[in-house]
């Protein structure tokens, strides 16, 4: 019960960063026009901010959390250290997930013709910025109602 309450409080704190994170996602989509969607989620699968167009964000956030669980274990089990990023290439484009601090991840959807080199550069940079925003929100519990 106490754990559930703490999680709920944490979630509320995370959500205070939402407008700033959404701003970051919008700027990222402007910088990389081949992006078809961008979403920031907590590592346990809750949407923090999203700009995904037609794709349903809750589903993507939940699947990201599931893929992240496997990726973290795979990286750890093979001695590659903490999770940094995950890239999936489908027939019709890419799905990339980047670490954004310890509490959040950034998932990007891109067209097949995207410049993957640039996707990585911008994704990593944006992940670091979102990490600052999210960690900042977690450190300011007094701001939550």
């Amino acid at each position, binding site marked *: 019960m106490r754990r559930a309450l703490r999680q709920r409080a944490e979630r509320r704190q995370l959500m205070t960063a939402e407008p700033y994170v959404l701003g970051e996602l919008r700027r990222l989509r402007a910088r990389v026009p081949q992006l078809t969607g961008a979403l920031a989620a907590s590592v346990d699968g809750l949407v923090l901010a999203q700009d995904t167009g037609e794709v349903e964000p809750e589903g993507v956030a939940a699947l990201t959390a599931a893929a992240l669980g496997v990726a973290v274990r795979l990286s750890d089990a093979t001695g590659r250290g903490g999770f940094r990023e995950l890239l999936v290439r489908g027939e019709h484009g890419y799905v990339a997930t980047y670490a954004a601090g310890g509490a959040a991840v950034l998932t990007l959807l891109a067209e097949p013709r995207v*410049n993957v*080199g*640039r996707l*990585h*550069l911008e994704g990593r940079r944006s992940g670091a910025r979102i990490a600052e925003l999210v960690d900042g929100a977690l450190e300011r519990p007094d701001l939550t109602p």
Partner: protein
Amino acid sequence: MANAETALKEATTVIDGALGAALVDYTSGMALGAIGGGKDLDLTVAAAGNTDVVRAKVRTMEMLGLQDDIEDILITLGTQYHLIRLLKGRGANGLFLYLALDKNRANLAMARHQLKKIESELEV
């Protein structure tokens, strides 16, 4: 015939004023190999950025209806030359060599000639 690593090593040692070189896949924007560079010239950033340059030129030529290929692209900065040379030949489609040169030390005509030779001998 040289592999990617040998070709890049040759480009940065044989060509006067070379600062760094990379072999880039412009379908993905990722480097297949890179040598030199350092903190003043991040070759990963250069690979991704110059992929956009090459793609823009390819698209422009399509729009102009030019039935031709790009041989190379020269970008002249205040203190550097950047040379982009697209690979020709079998199995090498969608790749380019990128070479950054110090303007004061480089001989542009010679560098272009040498890069052409390195490219022709490169087997990916």
